[in-house]
């Protein structure tokens, strides 16, 4: 076992949350949306509002699994000129002020293929985990090794259509946490079935001790409340991105994000076991 000091930020965060019988609030926004000048302040607002883990979208021209909200976020960020290099620069800036909150990058494989030495540069910037939407475990082997060498967790997604057999295989190679995609569909969809999600998460819990976060389709405190008791974390994306889309100065947008995060935080904490 490694000593507490060389535990990853993700492990530390989940250990701490478990000790407090609390659940992780994971937020998603796209870096550079609406401009690179906004990102740092937005991230700080989210953390102040009670976010435990920051998921940052790498802007991509062809985000296949995203719904309209996050597609539009990608378009805004690209219009503002944001690149993967900028994403890493924003992480570096954030790390100057915050060395505790885990950062997980989320995006599509072509972005990281285009950057030589991505793993090393991401690690140096202060990235803790990576979610590649279009990288199932069968294809992940090649990048898993170099990521592990830089202590970056490769986080895999599980879906309602993932069979039990396959789930067993995925938990074997996963690290950091597991991301359970709560519905058949794209980000921001609204056909969420909390009973089915709960059943599925329970099933996964029997297979692994890794934390399980649930995302896709959670937009408000009500839904978060239903899921939080059964999972280790809740991922909220489109709802935050929609608040960014309303526009305004970095301070204005950041305040909006902070307020939404606090609201979700309260809902999640209201379900805390005594």
């Amino acid at each position, binding site marked *: 076992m490694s000593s507490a000091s060389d535990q990853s930020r993700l492990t530390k965060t989940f250990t701490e949350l478990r000790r407090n019988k609390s659940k992780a609030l994971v937020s998603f926004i796209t870096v550079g949306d609406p401009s690179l000048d906004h990102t740092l302040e937005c991230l700080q607002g989210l953390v102040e509002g009670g976010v435990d883990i920051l998921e940052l979208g790498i802007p991509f021209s062809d985000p*296949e699994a995203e719904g309209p909200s996050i597609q539009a976020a990608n378009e805004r960020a690209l219009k503002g000129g944001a690149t*993967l290099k900028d994403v890493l620069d924003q992480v570096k800036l954030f790390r100057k002020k915050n060395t505790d909150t885990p950062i997980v990058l989320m995006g599509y494989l*072509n972005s990281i*293929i*285009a950057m030589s030495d991505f793993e090393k540069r991401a690690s140096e910037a202060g990235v803790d985990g990576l979610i590649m939407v*279009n990288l199932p475990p*069968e294809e992940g082997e090649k990048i898993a090794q170099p990521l592990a060498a830089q202590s970056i967790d490769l986080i895999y997604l599980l*879906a309602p259509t993932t*069979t039990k057999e396959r789930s067993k295989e995925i938990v074997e190679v996963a690290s950091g946490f597991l991301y359970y995609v709560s519905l058949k569909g*794209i980000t921001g969809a609204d056909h969420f079935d909390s009973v089915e999600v709960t059943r599925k998460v329970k099933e996964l819990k029997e297979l692994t001790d890794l934390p399980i976060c649930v995302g896709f389709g959670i937009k408000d405190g009500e839904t978060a409340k239903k899921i939080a008791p059964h999972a280790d974390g809740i991922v909220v994306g489109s709802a935050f991105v929609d608040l960014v889309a309303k526009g305004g100065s970095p301070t204005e947008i950041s305040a909006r994000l902070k307020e939404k995060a606090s609201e979700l935080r309260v809902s999640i904490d209201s379900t805390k076991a005594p």
Partner: protein
Amino acid sequence: MAEKIETEFYDAPSKGGYFGEYGGRFVAETLTHALNELSDLYDKAQRDPQFKREFHHDLNHFVGRPTSLYFAKRFTGLLGGAKVYLKREDLNHTGAHKICNTVGQALLAKRMGKPRVIAETGAGQHGVATATIAARLGLECDVYMGAEDVKRQSLNVYRMKLMGANVIPVSSGSRTLKDALNEAMRDWVTNVDNTHYIIGTVAGPHPYPMIVRDFASVIGQEARAQMLEREGRLPDTVVACVGGGSNAMGIFYPFVNDSSVSLVGVEAGGNGLQTGEHAAPLNEGKVGVLHGNRTYLMCDDDGQINETHSISAGLDYPGVGPEHAHLKDIGRATYSSATDVEAMEAFRMMNKSEGILAALETSHALAWVVKNAPAMKESEIILVNLSGRGDKDILTVAEIDGITL
């Protein structure tokens, strides 16, 4: 259905869907199950004589196959070199090679008990082919089409609607074929239980590149047999245009093990490769991952997919089927390009010398012939995949000629 060509020399793809280092299955987790199901079902269908009979029955009686192998005598005379034969895919029902794949895949959808099919389309040819077979089999059909293309291809849009399909304009990204493909993937991920996605070319995640190739390779099988009957020998060169690469794979595949036959794919050179305004990833692209597979792509240093340009909407795509990437790397096929202007010249020559109105996509393959046949010996034979007819392009051509119809 296509016979599997099993030799030691060429046996791609691998079980995981790799053609050398290209292909694979880069998709959101939700789709993995559906792709596994499709692989299993296809595997069974391939070994089922009943499926083969159904496929060929529809190709013969509904599509009108086999298509003819035609010696283009005046075109050959005009160029003064190699003998040019045309595999007349323009004579298919709906006017292009695309229908072979849609018939095969719609039969697979039936077998899976899925009542709904979806498709992406650029020029509208694949959309029309899908709407057609959906009507014939009583399947519900939604076709995604870039908002730009909906405007440019109004005839095909209306044609799809007449057959009961729903055409959904896509306003995200560059509002063209690649975005239509993204949107179709999003639909599929959401409706995977009752929907089969009929991809229109040899791209996408495994098993699509293999399935589409196998269904399309009826073209090469017929052409190979017809050529042996007519000339008593194989052609020296087989030429086809390459968008995603289905008509090219369809005619190349049955010749892959014939080492005396050279295979030439022709990409869209647009305004010229040096201008960057083209759709020629095999000539000028880099290796990356898009739409479920690893292949050559047109993208920038940050991995963002570039907008492409071609006079022909059917070639206006930033990627290319992974098997072509493999054939290029192993040197089994070569890939050239033709500009918009060269394609237009070839288009006009074919009209006037043979009375055949070729599609603008196809005209890129013809442009290669115009350029290269004169330097070849009269005893040599070129086989061209005349992938489709140009009726759909008449408005575009008239516009170039400054005529309003």
